[in-house]
């Protein structure tokens, strides 16, 4: 088991399997950073994204690119509608945090319930086959799905970093995240920043659901379970630290993958949750690594 090729395989597959979770976590953490909301409605948007692609591919027989574009359209629309007609209304009423939390959770359940009525509860995959072509690189099995996952993860995080660092809208997100009222005094529209955040989070959600839905079966309830991993990554990375949340998701996936070396598979989740319990207890604001070396990851 300690053969270098086996270790490399565990590392590579752990990294690839982390990719959809990283994308989902980055979207979730960005929303939390900018809007200050634990937006559980994202589970509902994840279901919207997956089932739009599923319908486009399997019911309408459309090409993959069109299915993905449709999913981006419906997810962005659902996300913006929620922002404009739900969250903004609650903000204007100066509702408490608990109201926001309950609203997003109920919205998620509502969307999932409607999707269940339309699509049923059988596990569905985007494509009939869940097999992905594999090539052996240096003794390590690398599937096309792995490459796509890692590519989307790196590309998505890099694109977000470029956006937040070099565009005015991106810099406005950071300003609104730091202090929305102060940002508005300087002429930055917080409402626009919230909407930009909703669009970016939707793009990450679609990418994530494409990866998950082409790798295994999904039922309408699956996104509610998946969003938990986004919450864990966000907590461990530290609230407001988007890229650190993504890195935390990778770290959690690798911890889980490598634990097989010294633990039976059935203990893997126990180890994961035990680790999280200790991390949250000892580092309630997330694990902060030295800033001078990890400024990029911290996203500041």
């Amino acid at each position, binding site marked *: 088991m300690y053969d270098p090729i086996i270790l490399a395989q565990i590392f590579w597959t752990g990294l690839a399997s982390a990719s959809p979770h990283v994308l989902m976590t980055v979207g979730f953490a960005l929303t939390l950073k900018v809007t200050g909301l634990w937006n559980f409605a994202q589970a509902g948007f994840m279901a919207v994204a997956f089932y739009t692609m599923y319908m486009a591919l399997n019911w309408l027989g459309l090409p993959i690119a069109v299915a993905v574009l449709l999913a981006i359209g419906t997810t962005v629309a659902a996300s913006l509608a929620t922002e404009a007609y739900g969250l903004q209304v609650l903000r204007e009423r100066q509702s408490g945090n608990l109201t926001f939390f309950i609203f997003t959770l109920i919205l998620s359940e509502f969307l999932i319930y409607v999707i269940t009525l339309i699509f049923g509860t059988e596990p569905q995959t985007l494509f009939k086959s*869940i097999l992905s072509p594999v090539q052996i690189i240096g003794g390590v099995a690398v599937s096309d799905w792995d490459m796509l996952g890692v590519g989307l993860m790196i590309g998505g995080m890099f694109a977000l970093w470029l956006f937040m660092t070099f565009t005015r809208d991106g810099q406005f997100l950071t300003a609104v995240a730091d202090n929305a009222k102060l940002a508005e005094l300087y002429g930055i529209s917080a409402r626009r920043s919230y909407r930009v955040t909703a669009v970016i989070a939707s793009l990450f959600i679609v990418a994530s659901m494409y990866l998950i839905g082409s790798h295994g079966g999904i039922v309408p309830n699956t996104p509610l379970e998946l969003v938990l991993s986004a919450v864990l990554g966000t907590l461990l990375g530290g609230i407001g630290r988007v890229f650190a949340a993504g890195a935390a998701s990778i770290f959690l996936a690798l911890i889980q993958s490598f634990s097989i070396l010294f633990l039976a598979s059935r203990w893997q989740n126990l180890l994961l949750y035990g680790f999280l319990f200790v991390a949250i207890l000892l580092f309630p604001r997330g694990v902060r690594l030295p800033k001078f070396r990890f400024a990029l990851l911290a996203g500041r």
Partner: protein
Amino acid sequence: MTNIVLPRRQLLAATALTALAAPAIVRAQSKEPIRLGTAMPLTGSQAGYGADFVTGMRMAAKDVTEAGGIAGRPVEILALDTQADPQLGINAVNRFIGVEKLPMYFVAWSPVVKAVAPISNREKVLAINTGANAPEIAHLGDYVYTAFPLADVDISKLATYSVKTLGKKRAAVLYINNDTGIDAAKIYREFFTAAGGQIVAFEAYDPKATEFTGMLLKTRAANPDMVHIHGLLTDVPQVIAQMRQLGMTQRVSTYSVAYNPKILEQLGAAAEGLIVTSLAPGVAENPRLTPFIERWKKEAGRAPNGLPYIQYQYDMVLMAKAMYEYLDKKGIAATGESLREALLAVKTFELPMTGQMVVDGHRVDKPVYLLTVEKGQFVPLATLS
């Protein structure tokens, strides 16, 4: 318009003749129905099977009612959702007993059967398992019986067959870490070893896991010549797919859960050689099955999910019929206690879809039909009696 006036005597005679000549269904439908409760996952990840189980039972209820009913009474199926979740199973059974006042009900999925067993024993209401296979079900109490062979029937025979007939000597057992997998995996290990084989890897995975690479690499390092997977429809295809992607070419066996056309679609060529079990006769052994499948396709517009399981669900209504009619002949009211006595007294049931069933204490024994995947189709491999 002419009014026809019949003398009273002729009218009475005509009424009596009409009543005698009327189809049995008319008489059956005019009486209080016999309601059979079934607690199945109608929503959630297992609904693909659960909903079809109920459809199978409803088809049988319709057939039995049209053929005169149970002791002249129509049959109704009362289905409640469990989502294969023990807590929801308890809710469903409490409603069967407390609200619907049913003396017996059907139930499946091992964790649910185990959860509801104490209620059945306490309330003396008969619970009949129609699809769960955890061996522990045989020891759940006086009011919990099974009509479905438990894992010690098919898994023991499959393990022995793998060594003695297929010549496999080193098996890996990968199983879901819940009531479905744990006991069955132990049985496979016990019988594979008893037949002269060696278990080189014995790994459980989390029921919510989607990534199995670490476990599979560990398995690959143990160099098995056979891999037995005991999981559910959501995870078994993923385990096999990831196995093949890691270059593991060993023959894979599993149980009846994978006897499902969806597996063939999801795995394509990776499913070749897969061995599954079936505890009900196929079309080659039972001529009633082809018309049943045709009827199903006509009514549901697709093939059934888990055909052998559905054959059992259909037969449960016929089994209930035999038990109720036994009590009716003796003039005994149907209660949990009397139905339990009827089950043990009738003992041998001749059932149309699954053949003869002999209740042997809290177990039933049946032939095991092995199928394998060849050119994208399930084909018979062996029948183990």
